[in-house]
């Protein structure tokens, strides 16, 4: 089984006292049956911690570290919450150099694909990481240089029963050192000896159990903390807060998210930077539509067209991303055609995406975007925060959620088997507005009731999304086929395979259309309605 590390922090005086001869031997007598032994000379290790931009590894209780020694081997180490080793894999020098060469910023300079999980060597490490990381890139999040002094505790057979590392870590080669750490690594089958050693250490003056790990220590030195980015709306609103101030704070938080994703989108590091950026734009546009009237006069009207421009700028690349991300599933679903037949189609979409990505990057570097970003932040900061202003955040949230909910009910009830696809598309937009209203004001409500309301709405949204997305994909597929025919390079087998994909999409759309009535009934039924009313307080009145 994997054994947890025992970690301690030493104060400076203890380390100095321990630095002569066999460190700690005088400080921590390990009894007659055991003895300390130094293990090689102190060595310097360059450490780079990697995680996705949205901290997927940290949130899953995992830590990925790339360690390298000067002119020595480099290694990836994946550890669990207690520091126990889960997987290790030698890294090539190129990976180590790339991680070390990247600046302290969160946007790596190396070619984007080199940070994707597919760039890691195949093996247990990649297998463990893949389901957690998904399509996100693994980026350097912190760096440090450690001078590690290794020791062993031996039993009376001179067998090592525990390894001990005294680690003096600094955020950079010339940066001041952080409090030194002492780490006991138990050997498999010798856990009780490591526990005994840990007990002895806790009794030594100047030695305390470590409350944070080395990653947190390195991040803190850089003024950061793990989990400092999330795509979710994390701002906490107060029910009695003036609505204008609450809306402004949500919008400011959305602008933070948007801006945080711009460098990664321009560098095209992974597809989720653009996805999160688009979600922030859509939420902003919905918030302006839902509650823009509580902001100072003219503010929403001034910025709405700008955010529409930004949304439109990002759409073509994302649409093509969706195609490319779903390509594996699309190919796997073929019955008559071979997955290889679709390859020219994938290459065509990839070429189009490269063109659109360049357009997108140009747009985000355009002064229009920096002006929008700057002016919007300034305008939000100038929103008056008078304590007595009315309505309150909670009153506004209740009203707007109920209004959005009524709109979904009305539009949904008007849909019959004869309704045109546009009617379902409009309903999807209304459902999205309700979803965003619930998310924007989420912190004002009881988490359990709020989660339940979102869950019911999500089931309806999934059905509407499937209907609409398959329609868009079928239309695009026809357009792609036309473009490829015009280029006169498309093999007949590819067109046949694309036809099979289109038929599959049509089947999915038909299934979604058949499911709609049931899904809407569940959402609009008495149970669903009363939950929204209870959530927003109407049932009380």
């Amino acid at each position: 089984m994997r054994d947890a590390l025992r970690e301690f922090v030493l104060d400076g005086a203890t380390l100095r006292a321990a630095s002569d001869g066999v460190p700690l031997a005088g400080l921590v007598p390990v009894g007659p049956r055991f003895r300390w032994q130094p293990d090689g000379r102190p060595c310097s290790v360059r450490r780079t911690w990697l995680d996705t931009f949205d901290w997927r590894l940290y949130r899953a209780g995992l830590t990925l570290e790339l360690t390298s020694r000067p002119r020595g081997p480099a290694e990836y180490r994946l550890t669990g919450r207690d520091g126990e080793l889960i997987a290790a894999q030698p890294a090539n020098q190129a990976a180590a150099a790339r991680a070390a060469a990247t600046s302290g910023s969160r946007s790596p300079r190396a070619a984007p694909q080199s940070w994707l999980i597919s760039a890691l060597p195949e093996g247990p490490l990649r297998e463990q990481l893949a389901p957690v990381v998904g399509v996100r890139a693994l980026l350097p999040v912190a760096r440090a240089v450690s001078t590690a002094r290794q020791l062993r505790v031996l039993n009376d057979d001179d067998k090592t029963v525990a390894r001990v590392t005294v680690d003096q870590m600094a955020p950079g080669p010339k940066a001041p050192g952080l409090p030194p750490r002492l780490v006991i690594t138990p050997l498999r089958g010798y856990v009780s000896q490591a526990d005994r050693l840990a007990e002895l250490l806790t009794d030594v003056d100047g030695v305390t159990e470590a409350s944070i790990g080395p990653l947190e220590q390195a991040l803190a030195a850089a003024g950061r903390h793990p989990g400092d980015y999330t795509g979710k709306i994390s701002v906490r609103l107060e029910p009695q807060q003036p609505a204008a101030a609450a809306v402004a704070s949500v919008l400011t938080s959305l602008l933070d998210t948007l801006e945080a994703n711009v460098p990664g989108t321009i560098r095209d590091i992974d597809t989720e930077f653009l996805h999160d950026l688009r979600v922030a734009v859509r939420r902003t546009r919905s918030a302006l539509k839902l509650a823009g009237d509580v902001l100072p006069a003219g503010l929403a009207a001034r910025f709405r067209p700008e955010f529409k421009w930004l949304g439109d700028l990002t759409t073509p690349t994302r649409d093509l991303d969706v195609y490319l991300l779903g390509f594996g599933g699309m190919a796997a679903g073929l019955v008559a055609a071979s997955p290889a037949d679709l390859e020219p189609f994938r290459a065509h979409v990839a070429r189009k995406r490269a063109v659109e990505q360049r357009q997108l990057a140009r747009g985000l570097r355009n002064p229009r975007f920096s002006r929008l970003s700057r002016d919007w932040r300034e305008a939000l900061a100038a929103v008056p925060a008078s304590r007595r202003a009315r309505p309150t955040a909670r009153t506004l949230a209740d009203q707007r959620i109920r209004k959005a909910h009524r709109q979904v009910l009305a539009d949904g009830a008007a849909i019959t088997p004869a309704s045109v696809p546009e009617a379902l598309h409009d309903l999807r937009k209304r459902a999205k507005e309700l979803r965003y209203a619930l998310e924007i004001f989420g912190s004002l409500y009881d988490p359990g009731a709020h989660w339940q309301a979102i869950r019911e709405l999500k089931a309806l949204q999934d059905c509407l999304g499937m209907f609409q997305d398959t329609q868009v994909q079928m239309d695009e597929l026809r357009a792609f086929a036309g473009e490829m025919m015009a280029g006169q390079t498309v093999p007949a087998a590819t067109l046949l395979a694309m036809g099979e994909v289109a038929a599959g999409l049509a089947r999915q759309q038909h299934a979604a259309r058949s499911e709609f009535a049931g899904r809407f009934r569940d959402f609009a039924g008495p149970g669903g309605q009363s939950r929204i009313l209870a959530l927003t307080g109407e049932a009380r009145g």
Partner: protein
Amino acid sequence: MKILATYNIKGGVGKTATAVNLAYLAAKAGHRVLLWDLDPQAAATFLFRIRPRVKGGGKALIQGTRTLDAAIKGTDFDRLDLLPADFTYRNLDLLLDSARKPERKLGRLLAPLRSGYDVVFLDCPPSISLLSESVLHAADVLLVPLIPTTLSVRTLDQLTEFIDGFEGKQPGILAFFSMIDRRKRLHKEIATTLPAQRKDVASTAIPALSIIEQMSVQRAPVVSFAPRSAAARSYVELWKEAADRAGLAAD
């Protein structure tokens, strides 16, 4: 997970020295390695300074009341663990005899370790028995040390014939000459000519050198305490051939 077994019906031919040194080299190459010392004499266990004792003995392991995982001990070397020998292993044949499909038992016991190890070395006692049959079925590659005599080549042929009779999976065989005395003409002759004639005989031969015997004094693999010695160099070459045969990266 690849399983490599050092096997020969004869004792004292260098099985344990090979298992210990190759396991060390495999771990050094970055593989997660387990060495199971199946010999009740516990030579490999002694060389790694580990006490030759398994709670519940061989019976608990074979009957599954104790998992192999729980009995494993870390050696002094990174990525290299040992499943120690126990004196009760002398009864493994009897225990296997009462198990269902005894010739497959070892493979079944090792299967749960698949996610934790890349390579398993089995160091077998010298015998031909139900245990060795189970080892032959579990192994991907058999490492067979041969003393350079005409008789030992005949034994290799018998082993090959026996394995040819297996239904389904058959281990690959990599025989190699061990304890070569360069001063003896016969040793030199056989060690040179046979690898050229037979694919199942490695081109590397392990010389008879006193530094290999020093392992029991140093209680460590020769490749760790005398990495530049002729013996260590021979084990490195043998590891390359064994890794190639098993489809593993050698460094």
